[in-house]
Every structure is written in structure tokens, then in C-alpha cells.
């Protein structure tokens, strides 16, 4: 595995080319435009939408109607983005009309790029270099935060990933606990990790972290302190491979 690390961890490794900009998604509105360096783009479908997924989506759309914002097929899984006010209704529709009786997970996404680029002064020199523009995955997003969940059918064997946008100023979305009781813990985790509040959750409180914990660890601006103060210890083991064109500069201090 050491052969992958030198360039991956090199501070002067070039940032990956920005993905080819296609036409801006219509959903991206003024709030998103206020963000720095937003690359408003709709990534092309990763695979062709196969007829089964389209048929499933047609059923979902017929039941939910206006609430659907966008949909995509991603490697055999239907991904549907719904309006925030239709979030709970989407779960009800999935459960009642699509036989999705099984709750797989509910979680969140923070689309903001990590604020400190690897290799900056004091920054993390080991993390993979991520693009510094904000892009929004297969069904787009209105802003920084999204809540997403996956429900499945144990009888029909299909699954659907639901996404919805969450305001950055007041992250709040309806709870799924009334539809899927198992959403309880997932939403507690999402609440403490992303700071997203769930309206209608019976008792939202910390799940993993101690009650006095401050901050939301899975937000991109929450620094992984261990890597801020000390670079990845594996770096000293990195030696240039024979045939490497560029001498590796991160191997200083190596033995």
C-alpha cells in the first residue's frame, strides 16, 4: 500500500482537475450562489437508468407528486431528492405505496469542501486532496447540508435512497420516527454529528458523544484535531519507489 501514499500525501500534489462543468442545475438558487466557489453543475447519470428503476420512480412520483425535485439512478439504486416539506410524506409513500418496509439508515451529508487544503501551513498533510469547489452529487442540492436515508423492501427486494436539502441557518427537517420507529437512533446520530434538528422526534439527545460535547464532528469545518497537530505518522515510512519521476519531499526524517 505504501506505493499509493507518496503522491497522495505529497503537499504539492496537484489538485484534481475540476470536473467538467455542464449546464447549471435549475435547483441551485440564490442561497447556493452566495457560497464561495460553488460549481453549480449537474453530474451526468453514472449509469443508464434501467427500466426497473424508472418504473419504481414512476410509482413513487405518482404517489408523492409535487414533492419530487430530482431523481437519478446510481449503480442500480434509485436516488430521489424531495422537497424538505415532503420529507416525512416521502417516507410514508415509500412505506405504503412502494412496500419499503425496511429502514436501512438515515444520515446527513455536508457538501462543503474541507476548509483547509491539505499541505497548507499547519494543515493536514496526509488527507487525500479533495476538490475545493462545492459539488452536489447525483441529484444536486440547494445548499450545504442534506439529510439522506435508504429504505428497502424485504418482499420486492428493491431499495430507494431519499435525499432532502436542509437549510444551513436553521437545519431542521421532519422526523421519520412516526413512520419507521428505527429512525430514532439514526436521527439522534445525525443530530449530534451534523446539528440537524428533527421535528417530531420524541426525545432528541446525544447518542455516541457525551452530553457536554460541543460541536458537530461530521461537519466538514470540524477539524480532526489529531491530524492538525501531528501529521499522519505513516508519512515517515514513505520512500520513493524505484522509477518514480518526482522525488518525494514528504519523506524527510524517514529512516
Amino acid at each position, binding site marked *: *500500500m505504501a*506505493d*499509493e*501514499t507518496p*503522491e*497522495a500525501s505529497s503537499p504539492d500534489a496537484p489538485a*484534481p482537475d475540476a*470536473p467538467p462543468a455542464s449546464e447549471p442545475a435549475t435547483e441551485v438558487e440564490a442561497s447556493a450562489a452566495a457560497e464561495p466557489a460553488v460549481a453549480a453543475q449537474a*453530474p451526468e447519470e*453514472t449509469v443508464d437508468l434501467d427500466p426497473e428503476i424508472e418504473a419504481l420512480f414512476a410509482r413513487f412520483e405518482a404517489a408523492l407528486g409535487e414533492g419530487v425535485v430530482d431523481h437519478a439512478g*446510481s*449503480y*442500480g*439504486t434509485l*436516488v430521489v431528492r424531495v422537497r424538505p416539506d415532503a420529507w416525512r410524506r416521502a417516507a410514508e409513500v415509500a412505506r405504503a405505496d412502494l412496500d419499503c*418496509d*425496511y*429502514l*436501512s*439508515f438515515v*444520515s446527513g*451529508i*455536508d457538501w462543503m469542501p*474541507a476548509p483547509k487544503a491539505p499541505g497548507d501551513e499547519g494543515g*493536514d498533510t*496526509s*488527507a*487525500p*486532496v*479533495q*476538490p475545493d469547489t462545492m*459539488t452536489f*452529487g*447525483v441529484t444536486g442540492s440547494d445548499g450545504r447540508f442534506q439529510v*439522506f436515508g*435508504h429504505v428497502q423492501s*424485504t*418482499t420486492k*427486494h428493491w*431499495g430507494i*435512497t431519499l435525499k432532502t436539502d436542509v437549510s444551513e441557518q436553521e437545519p431542521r427537517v421532519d422526523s421519520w420516527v412516526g413512520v*419507521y*420507529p*428505527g429512525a*430514532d*437512533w439514526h436521527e439522534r446520530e445525525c443530530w449530534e*454529528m451534523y446539528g440537524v434538528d428533527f421535528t417530531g422526534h420524541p426525545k432528541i439527545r*446525544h*447518542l*455516541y*458523544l*457525551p452530553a457536554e460535547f460541543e460541536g458537530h*464532528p*461530521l461537519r466538514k469545518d*470540524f477539524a*480532526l484535531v489529531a*491530524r492538525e497537530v501531528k501529521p*499522519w505518522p505513516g508519512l515517515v515510512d514513505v520512500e520513493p519507489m524505484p522509477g518514480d519521476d518526482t522525488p518525494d519531499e514528504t519523506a524527510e526524517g524517514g529512516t
Partner: protein
Amino acid sequence: MATTETPGFEVDPSLYRNLENAQVNVELDNGDMILNLGPQHPATHGTLRLVVRLDGERVVAADPVIGYMHRGYEKLTEFRTYPQITTLVNRIDWLSSFANEVPFVHGAEQLMGITAPPRAEWIRTILTELSRIATIYLFLGEMGLQVGALTPAFWGFRDREHVLNLIESATGGRFHPNFNRIGGLKEDLPWGWIAECRATMDKILRGCDDFEDVLVGNEIFEARTRGIGIIPGELGTAYGVSGANLRASGVDWDLRRDGKPYLAYPEVDFKVWTHPDGDSFARYWVRLQETREAVRIVLQLLDSLPAGPIMAKVPRIIKVPEGEVWTEVENPLGQMGYYIISKGATGPFRVKIRSASFSNVSILPWLLRGVYVPDVITIMGSLYFILGDIDR
């Protein structure tokens, strides 16, 4: 305040205050009692704390307190390259580490558009099933321990060692193989491994018979598990309970057969066992049959093991193209999934880890309501969770 005249003796007035309070203390709430189970209890396989409110011997409410082992893997994955992450996911469910790696490398392979060669997929399937046997075998023994039978626990540990030796001789690691590479496997099987694997499978089958003889049908075991901790199938699915826990409630759903085709499972013939009862006994029985079925799968795969390379052609620097993929597999403990979001870098942008035990245990507050204290332990034992799989 009441004052008493005692000549020559000055009484501290605070004593009287205490006396008044003593009246109050006598009338304390004598209804419920709070009992702390854990965080270190043999039945929890780690550090799970369970706060139960008791009315006599009966549980009124139970609240699992988790997070003692939370390691923040979802955050850590954002700071690692793809090849480095397999070492992390190894440690989620530490008894079946190999099975945790497979869905992750599968997700990365799908995003990169590469497929591992057939031989690699076959060996992955064999090792996944061996992990399943090793994991469930421990349960088959420990479940006896929960009801007071000591011998099966020793059998479980003894025979699991044979399987761990197999995994070790193939991968180099007993518990944390880190054997998967994106595009295939690290190495091929060692010489003589297949014959040894066949011999071990015989031992496992005999061990399953032993467990059946000693526990299934045993009067004490049945009395402690039959009709205890019943999960209705439709409630289990709504809570996200998966794996043998769900199949023991009559839900005929196994991702090896019903999910998106993965590994070599479409090529093998196996039966998905279910049980209609949904109680602790059903969960034990289903897992016992699953172990035998895993042996059948391994033997079939050993027969049909294709020749060829074990590694696809992959670039030296693994950069995964932009995209999102959801991969799910049937792990020994239930549904294990990764939602990988890549932005075209050497590491993922976000990985949501869906681990089986997390959802399996989230039903505990519902399940433990109204049961007796000794049954709490057998129910928790029969759900079979690994703390690393809850806390991630």
C-alpha cells in the same frame, strides 16, 4: 422547628433539621428501581451499558447507552485514501473483519468501473463465509453460556480456532486480514489450503451437530428461550433489524440471494432458513442452520474455484471517479452497507457506514419492556451484536 430543653446540653439545631428530613426519607418512592447493566458485562461483547428501570423483577423501561467505543470511522474515512480505509473497516465488526472489507472495495470497484477476476471473487466469497462461520460459531457456544451451560462455550471457542487458522494461513491475519485490494486480493491461496479447508468444514459440521444435541431440545435451554423476546417481523423491518434476527421472525430476506448480485453467490445453491416464532430460540436455530449452509456454500465454491489471476489491472494511484454508490451485503450480523460519495480524489468525500448491530440493538428499548431481569441477558445474547458494529 421543634426545640427540646435539655439542661446543660446544647443540641446542634441542624440535627433537628435532619430529623425532619428523616421523616421525608422514609416515604421515598418505592415503586421503581434503576439498575445499571454494564458497561462491562459478559453478555454484551464489549462495552454496552443498559439502564433498566425495574418494577420488582420486571423491566419497565430499558435505555441502552452506547458510544463507549465510538471511534469516528465516518470522519476518519475522509482523511484516508481508499486502500487505507480497508484497515479501518476491518475493525467495525471485529469478528468478521473480512466480510466488512468486501462491500467497501466493491463500492470503490463499481465507481472505478473495474471488476475483480472470478478467482478473486470466489476466494472472497469463501473467506466471507468462513468469517460467517467463525462469527456465528462463537454465538452458538456463548448462547449456551447465557443460560448457564458452560461446555458449548468451550466448544465454540475451540472449533472457531480451526476456522481462524484457515483465515490466518490464507491472509496472514487472524482477526484483521486486510486482504482485499481494490481490484482483487493481495495474494492467492497457499498450497494445500483447499484440502485443509475441506477437513475443517467436516469439523464444523460435526460441531453443529454437537450444539444441536446439547442445546436444541435441552429442557433448560428451551425454557429460557422459547417465547422470550419475540420480535414481530413487521416491527423488525421498521426498526431495521436484519440478518438472522429478522429471518428468525419469519421475514424471508437474505441479501446474498435477494440483493444486487455480488461475489459468487449467484453461482451457488443455498437455502435461506427462516423460523416463524421470532423468539430467542428461533434466532439460535436460524443461526445454527446458517452455519451449516455456510459450510455447504464453502464446499461448493471449493469445487468450482476457477483458475486465473487474482488481481485486475488497476492504476498504481487509486483515484476513484466522481459518483455515489450504495453497496450492501449480508454480513454475519445482518445488513452491512456503505454509501460512498467520491469527488474524484484519492480518498472518499463521505462514507456512510451502515452497520448491522446498530439497528439490531436499537429495538432493545421496545423488546425489553415487560421482560424479567434474567431474560434481559438471554435476549441480548440472542440478538448477537458486536460493540464495534454498534459504535463504529
